[in-house]
């Protein structure tokens, strides 16, 4: 079983990329589980045709852990992709990170963490130990950073490299950086910039996903691009990413760079 996690700055397109990646992987005949690890709970919405599925945390709160069954938390979406949303508290109260930890405990208890590939779509940044949960021992071993060429997006990706580097030191940890996905905003030389950033942090850019109206159209139609426009060039990108993910053996301990170097890099490719 392959377990991968997508991390990146909020709003950069992690959920869109994750859902399309899951859809593309399922199209290869693989058994896929996608877990949204974000209180926003919208990771799997396109796979579920616009439906916001009940979250593990909703069920924990409303009916208690003892009454939660596997069928309550795992939902089947496009092409058989199984979907789970961790959910979390309302903004400003409680501890969302602890919610992620509790979700993993519940999923493990029900033996739900299975399939050919598990895709973890994680909230914008590793803000606390709870959001590092997918990177802990026994969970995602391959981390993909989703970023555009914008400085703040690269900054967030670099921070996540720090978390991976720290976690990779742990004796039982097999968590490694598997690559950088450029979800482009459409700025000039963006592909070159992200590829160079990936090289500087001891990794490589595994896929360039151009900005495309097809993505917006697919989302308005509550579908992944794979389902909405299977033959489009954008769908080809996600299929290419899926192939790369399945064949990828280049797993590294990242070498995060200093902010000054990051800034100079952004200026160099302006």
């Amino acid at each position, binding site marked *: 079983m392959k377990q991968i996690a997508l991390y990146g700055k909020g709003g950069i397109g992690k959920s869109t990329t994750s859902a399309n990646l899951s859809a593309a992987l399922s199209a290869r005949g693989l058994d896929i589980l996608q877990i949204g690890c974000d209180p926003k709970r919208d990771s799997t919405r396109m796979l579920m045709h616009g439906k916001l599925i009940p979250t593990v*945390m909703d069920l*924990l*709160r409303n009916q*208690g*852990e003892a009454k939660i069954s596997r069928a309550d938390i795992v939902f089947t979406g496009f092409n058989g992709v199984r979907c789970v949303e961790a959910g*979390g*508290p*309302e903004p*400003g*109260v*409680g*501890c*969302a990170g*602890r*919610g992620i930890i*509790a979700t993993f405990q519940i999923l493990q208890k029900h033996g739900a963490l299975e399939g050919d590939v598990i895709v973890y779509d994680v909230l914008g940044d590793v803000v606390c130990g709870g959001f590092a949960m997918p990177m802990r021992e026994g969970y995602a071993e391959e981390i993909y950073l989703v970023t555009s060429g914008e400085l703040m997006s690269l900054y967030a990706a670099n921070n996540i490299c720090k978390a991976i580097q720290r976690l990779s030191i742990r004796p039982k940890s097999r968590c490694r950086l598997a690559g950088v996905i450029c979800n482009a905003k459409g700025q000039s030389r963006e592909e070159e910039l992200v590829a160079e950033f990936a090289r500087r942090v001891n990794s490589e850019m595994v896929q360039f996903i151009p900005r495309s109206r097809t993505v917006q159209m697919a989302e308005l139609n509550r579908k992944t691009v794979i389902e909405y426009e299977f033959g489009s060039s954008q769908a080809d990108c996600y299929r290419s990413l899926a192939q790369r993910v399945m064949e990828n053996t280049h797993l590294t301990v990242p070498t995060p760079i200093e902010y000054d170097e990051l800034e100079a890099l952004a200026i160099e490719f302006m």
Partner: protein
Amino acid sequence: MNLRPLQSNSCRHGGCTLTGALSATTHVRDAVTVVHGPKGCAHHNFSLLHTTGLDNGELILPEIISTGLAETEIIFGGEEALAGVLTSVARQDPAAVFVLTTCIVDTIGDDVQEVCGRDYGVPIIRVPTAGFLGGTFQDGMNRALCAIAATVPSRRADSAASRAMGPCVNIIGEKNLEFEVEENYAEVCRLLDGLDLRVNVRCIRNCTLQDLSRLGMARLNILRDEELRPVGDFLKERFGTPYVISYPAGLEGTIGFLQSVADGCGVPGEGAIDREEEIQREILAGFQDIAGSEILMESSPGSPEALLVAGELVRRLALKPGAGGIRVPLPISPPVGSAGVRRLLHRWRCTIHA
């Protein structure tokens, strides 16, 4: 937030704000203390207070109620749980409800102040603690004393009601968890009696909220020790009451205490001091059988203040400290008053003659 580095001898320092605050609030006998946090935080403190009470000859079941936070409340916030418990506790119509918080409550950011600010029909007194995150045992105790004092009307010692009561003092911050707490209090009362002073309020030990309402009517506050200085300052600001910063420690310390209290209350102290010096001479005369003995003081876990008192006794009884001497125990806190010195010397005698 507690950012202080850990002391090398951490078991004798630091501690938890929750325990410190509970050691005070649970002695307001007509109030209830709500511990907002996991039930374990209330449980181990209940056990500690209960067994310490038994050690001091008191069978007391502290009125502690936990909000029982578990996984769900920690993820989604514990404010509803706190409001529910406060509503339930208020139905018992206690004189007041103290609300103390644990580490996890501050970690998840519950707005405890807002929840406590709602109307429950009984006074809610929030004590900002936050468990180990909030500071030390002493910080918790100090905050509890200040939180209670902040609810007391600011009547002053020069009011008509106060004058009618006669000259009196408050005892601030008794160590409710220490051994011989009542013996120490009795010794302080004996010394105060010699100055024709009486105790107005024990803040806080075995009292009611009504007792505490007289807090501002004393001429002087006697702090149990130096660490209560922030409380002394708070009370001075609120009620205008001056303070002395310690119980009497050792023989010379007892004479100094009498002088300080007499000065602070504006009463003559010479007669009481003369009588006390005579009592101290009699005490030392009663222990001449151990004078000149070779001893070895067990310095750990004694405080620096206790060591000072021990040094005084070494001088007064011409004891000979040395590596080959008989090991004599040193108390954690210095002996209180002349009676405390007598008890300490009695223990030393038992060891020396054993």
